[in-house]
């Protein structure tokens, strides 16, 4: 069942948290909404859930309007579920009771699931690897285990739409990668439609079929992980996803010449917005560093950080003092203060 968001505006006392958002989510799709804190991604998720109502615009789940400016269908009237950032497990209910709750209460759950509630709960608890812990209370579980219970509860009724609000942000790094794999596997198994809010680009890139990058209450770009990472369409996306440097210079057709040099860089893949502003987006790991002899962007190193597999360098461009970042994997040793040339 597809979900459609049409021209949504969300105004909190004059602050536009969402400004004219439109998005269509296909059945079975995994959509990640990616953006810095305060960009409106959580607000959008809460509108989908029915916790808030929009100032303008319309949300449709299937062919039913669930919210517009003067009507809102409450959460319990929508066939959705959600994994909360804090997990929101009820501390007075056991693992089993938590998972069983939506099956007993949702009015949309299928007859088949409701009739075989115990079996369904057992299956879900098994699916997230918690068999044997049914009687435990949330306080007796580790962070990762709580996360799994929250997942099982959200999947219990086989909803039309599963919302996830930064579900991995409370876990430590190692567990986060592990849970990421599990969420991906669960999605492939259940094919439930997912809207996944995160500020972590690696989560979005690893999990999503499509990524929606948001900033200041607006959608910057929608695309597959490859499109978003490889071909950013706005300066914000270029910087936020992949920390691209925006090198200033001049364009002649598909050829770019950095300011203060005679180098010619191929720019056939670069989006029009950069051509218009006279910039060339390039990721830190794609810039090569040489002492001299090549033509490119001349820059001076002001900070060097050794990080094992690579060296992170921060430089000032000699032409315009622009801050540049490079991830250098070569063998040569550089010092703060060295002047170098950056090439593609």
């Amino acid at each position: 069942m597809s979900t459609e968001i049409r021209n949504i505006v969300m105004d909190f006392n004059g602050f536009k948290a969402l400004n004219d958002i439109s998005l269509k989510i296909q059945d079975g799709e995994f959509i990640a909404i990616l953006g810095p804190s305060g960009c409106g991604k959580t607000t959008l998720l809460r509108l989908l859930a029915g916790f808030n109502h929009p100032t303008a615009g319309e949300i449709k789940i299937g062919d039913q309007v669930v919210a517009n400016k003067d009507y809102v269908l409450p959460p319990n009237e929508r066939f959705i579920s959600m994994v909360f950032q804090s997990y929101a497990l009820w501390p007075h209910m056991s693992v089993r009771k938590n998972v069983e709750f939506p099956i007993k209460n949702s009015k949309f759950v299928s007859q088949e699931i409701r009739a075989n509630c115990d079996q369904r709960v057992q299956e879900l608890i098994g699916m997230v690897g918690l068999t044997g812990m049914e009687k435990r209370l949330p306080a007796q579980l580790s962070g990762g285990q709580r996360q799994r219970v929250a997942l099982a509860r959200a999947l219990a009724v086989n909803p039309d739409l599963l919302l996830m609000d930064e579900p991995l942000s409370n876990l430590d790094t190692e567990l986060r990668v592990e849970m990421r794999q599990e969420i991906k596997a669960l999605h492939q198994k259940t094919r439930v439609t997912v809207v996944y809010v995160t500020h972590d680009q690696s989560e979005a890139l690893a999990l999503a079929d499509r990524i929606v990058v948001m900033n200041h209450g607006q959608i910057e770009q929608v695309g597959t992980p490859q499109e978003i990472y490889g071909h950013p369409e706005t300066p914000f996306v270029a910087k936020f996803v992949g920390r691209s440097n925006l090198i200033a210079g001049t364009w002649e057709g598909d050829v770019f010449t950095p300011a203060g040099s005679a180098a010619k860089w191929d720019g056939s893949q670069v989006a029009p917005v950069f051509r218009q502003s006279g910039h060339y987006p390039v990721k830190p790991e794609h810039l090569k560093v040489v002492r001299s002899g090549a033509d490119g962007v001349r820059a001076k190193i002001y900070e060097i950080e050794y990080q094992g597999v690579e060296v992170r360098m921060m430089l000032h461009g000699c032409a315009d003092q622009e801050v540049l970042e490079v991830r250098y994997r070569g063998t040569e040793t550089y010092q703060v203060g060295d002047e170098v040339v950056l090439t593609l």
Partner: protein
Amino acid sequence: MEKHTTRLGGRRISARSLPLYILVIFGLLAVFGLFFLPLWKLVEVAFQEEGRLSLGIFQEQLTDTKTLKVIWDTIYINILSSFFATVIGVVMAYFVAYADIRGKKLIHYALLLPLIIPGYIITLAWMQFFAKSGFVASLVQSVFPDAVMPNIYSYWGIIFVFSVTKYPLIYTLTLSTFRKISTDMELAAAISGCNKIKTFFKVTLPMSLSGVANGLLLVFISCLDNFGTVAFLGIPARITVLSTDIYQSIISFTGGFGEAAAKSVILGVIGVLSSLILWRVAKMFQTMQTDLEDMSPRFFLGRKKILVEILMWLAIFIINFVPMLTLIVTGFMKGIGGGYGLDNMTLDNFIFVFSNDKSFNAIKNSIFLAFSTALICVVLGTIVAYLMVRRPSVLIRVVESIISVPYSIPGIILGLALILTWASPLPIIHVTIYATVFMLLVSYVVRFTSLQIRNSTTGVLQTDISMEEAAEICGATAFKKWTSVIIPLIFPATVSGMGLVFLNALTELTTSSLLWSAGSETLGVVIYNYTSAGYTTSACALSTVVCITILLLVLLYKGVSALLRRRIGEE
């Protein structure tokens, strides 16, 4: 998989339903009429003479040397009592918070006893302790035949009883402030060359002054509010403070309540002024503290430990147990002055307490009142607390403020305000509840709802909103959300509020002393009447019954909440 597609329901945002509006307006009117109107009437009466706005009564009162002496005595007694209560409270808090003494939990609970036992019962107990021919006097005189017990019916008697009944207010606040001061601060002082005493005066005390000032405020206000102690000890000695003065003007009714109302306004103004001053002081001393209480001991007494422990237990024993023991012993005596042999001991007083109409009525009434007050307050208080936290608005803040006033003013003022409002029949339905037990119910609900709001608010604040949202997302209806998620989660804090309301209502004296009538006696009123009529042994027997009931209830509550906590799996 086949999914249901029929979806009905939904909610219009712009047009709220008419019944809801009517309900809200009715609720607001009820709150306004119950909680605000009486105080408004009182102020109106105070500022009126012959039907016109006037400051006449105030002029008369504030130039009358008798009234001025009453005001001066009130302030004088309260300041000295607050000072001594502070000394006891801070010293006890310091040792319980920081020293490595054993049995801290037990010491802590023993120190809190005056919080749960009504002040007038403790006063009655001290009256037995200091009685001229009492149990303690005869013990002392068996060693020193010429010894005379100090007279408790005096300024110093009142100040002494206030100090030993009010110190827990300072103790609890200072204890948590002491524990919240980061250990590093004190270690930093030690590293910089301070010894223990210097560290206390240069770091610990300055950092805890805001807690002490808040405690001081509570003690001062609580002494202003007090009626039992000053009535028991002050009236026989002709020492009058504002609360007893107002009481006497009301019961010696001479044609109007103007004088009592004006004195009530004066008492209220003193309360507000002292609150403002101490509140400013507390703000001035506000310092950064960790939020967490550090429970581990911070200094080690070594060989002196046993000495400190003995001293503390001795103090607790003398302050909190010996007077209660003399109370109990007096409850078993055939007659005062008949000696302390077994031949002067009897169960008759207890039999009397349960067979006498007045005291049996009082037991019945107080239990009924305590239960119904607790039930009404828990519903009302929890609704207001929930709306305050989850749907904050100017309207609900105003409602909460109106409800909190009757709890923060002295009970005697509330009593008079309620008389002025309820003495005549209610409009439209022409029913008078004045002089019935329902008058007392109204007064308790008006007085204690605020207490319940505070506790319920804690409960709602401790419950993250995502708990409720998760229930909604999982398909729960509003009813199901309340029964299976909200109520179980706010239960512990709500029930502890309910327990407090119950205890307070069970033993209330101040407003009851004005609003009771034949047939609607309460425990406090009967103990007060027995005492002032000289039936000391009966008063002591009834007090003993009340104390034992309270202790059993507290133990029951502690047991149940420990069980509940274990169920939720908290530490």
